[in-house]
C-alpha cells in the first residue's frame, strides 16, 4: 500500500478523529474560551489591524497552537504593500 492510501485510511479511523477533536477541546479548556469566542477574537484582531493597514483578508491565518502545555495564539497576517491607508 502506498503512503497516500495509508494516510487516507488513517484519517478515517476513530482514533484519528478522537485526537483531532481532543486537540481543539483541550485548547478551549486550557484558555477557558469557547471556539465561538475565539472566532470573535480573530475577527476583532483582523478588524483592528485593517483599520491601520490594508491586509490580504483571504490569506489571514490566526490559530491557537499547543506548545507543550502552553497555548500560543499565532497570527500570520499578510499586508498589502502598495496602497497604505493614512492614519488619524
Amino acid at each position: 500500500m502506498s503512503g497516500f492510501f495509508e494516510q487516507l485510511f488513517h484519517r478515517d479511523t476513530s482514533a484519528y478523529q478522537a485526537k483531532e477533536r481532543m486537540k481543539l477541546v483541550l485548547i478551549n479548556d486550557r484558555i477557558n474560551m469557547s471556539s465561538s469566542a475565539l472566532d470573535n477574537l480573530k475577527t476583532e484582531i483582523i478588524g483592528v489591524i485593517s483599520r491601520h493597514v490594508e491586509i490580504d483578508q483571504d490569506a489571514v491565518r490566526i490559530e491557537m497552537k499547543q506548545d507543550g502545555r502552553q497555548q500560543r495564539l499565532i497570527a500570520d497576517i499578510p499586508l498589502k504593500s502598495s496602497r497604505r491607508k493614512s492614519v488619524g
Partner: protein
Amino acid sequence: MPGKVVTITSGKGGVGKTTATANLGAALAAEGKKVVCIDADIGLRNLDVVLGLENRIVYDLVDLIEGRCRSRQALIRDKRLPELFLIPAAQTRDKSAVSPSDMTRLCDDLRGEFDWILIDSPAGIERGFRNAIAPTDIAVVITNPEVAAVRDADRIIGLIEAEEKGPARLLINRIKPGMVKRGEMLSPDDVLELLAVELIGMVPEDEVVITSTNRGTPVVLDGKSKAGQAFRNIAKRLQGEKIPFLPLEEESGFFGKISKLIRTGGN
C-alpha cells in the same frame, strides 16, 4: 531519608486510581519498602476491598485526624506483605471532615516511619482532590485512552501545576494494543502528545486485574500478568530507576492468535 508522598489522581472516576494505588503500594512493599496507602475518598471507601483488608477496619482516616485513635491503631497491616499498611477512608462522613492542612500534617507525621505514602484521591476537582494533593511530592495522573478521561486528566494536570505540585506524571491505564493497532483507540503517543506531560507508565487492559481484585489480591503479586509487570515497572520508576517502557503487544489468547494468523496471512 523522610518518606515520599505520591498522590494518585485522575479527575474522571473509574479509570483505575484505586487499583493503581493498591498495586503500586504492593509492588513497593514487595521490594521491602515500608509503605502506607491512604484512602482519601471519604464516603466512598474502596481501597480496603481492593487490598482484601475490609474485615480488619476498626478506625479510619477521620478518626485519626480527629484524634480518636493513634496512628498505630488506624494502620492496618496487609495479610501478605508485612511492610504494607492501609489507612482506610471513613465511610459515613463527608469530604469536609478533612482539610488539606489535616492531610499535610498527617503525612508529615508518617514520613518519619514510612518510605512511601501513597494517597488514593477521589474523582473530581473539589475538596477531596485538594486534600489528596496538598501533601504530595509526586502527583501521578491516571487516564485511559478515551476522550472523556483524557479531557479530565488535562484539567487535573492544569490544577496540579497551578498548585505548584507538578510536574504531573502520566499513567495511561487499560490500553488495548489490538484496538490501538487497528486505529480504534488513541495510542499512548497520541495521549502523550495531547497532554504534554512526562510518562511514568502504560498498563495494558488485563482481565487478571478483575479476577485478582475479586480475591482482594494485588495483581503485582501475579508473576505472569502483563498489568502486574507494568505496575512493578512503575514502582521502580517512582524510585528513580530508568526502566524501559514495555512494548505493547496484542492481546494473546485463542482469538488473538487466530486473528493474528489471518492478518499476517493477508500481507
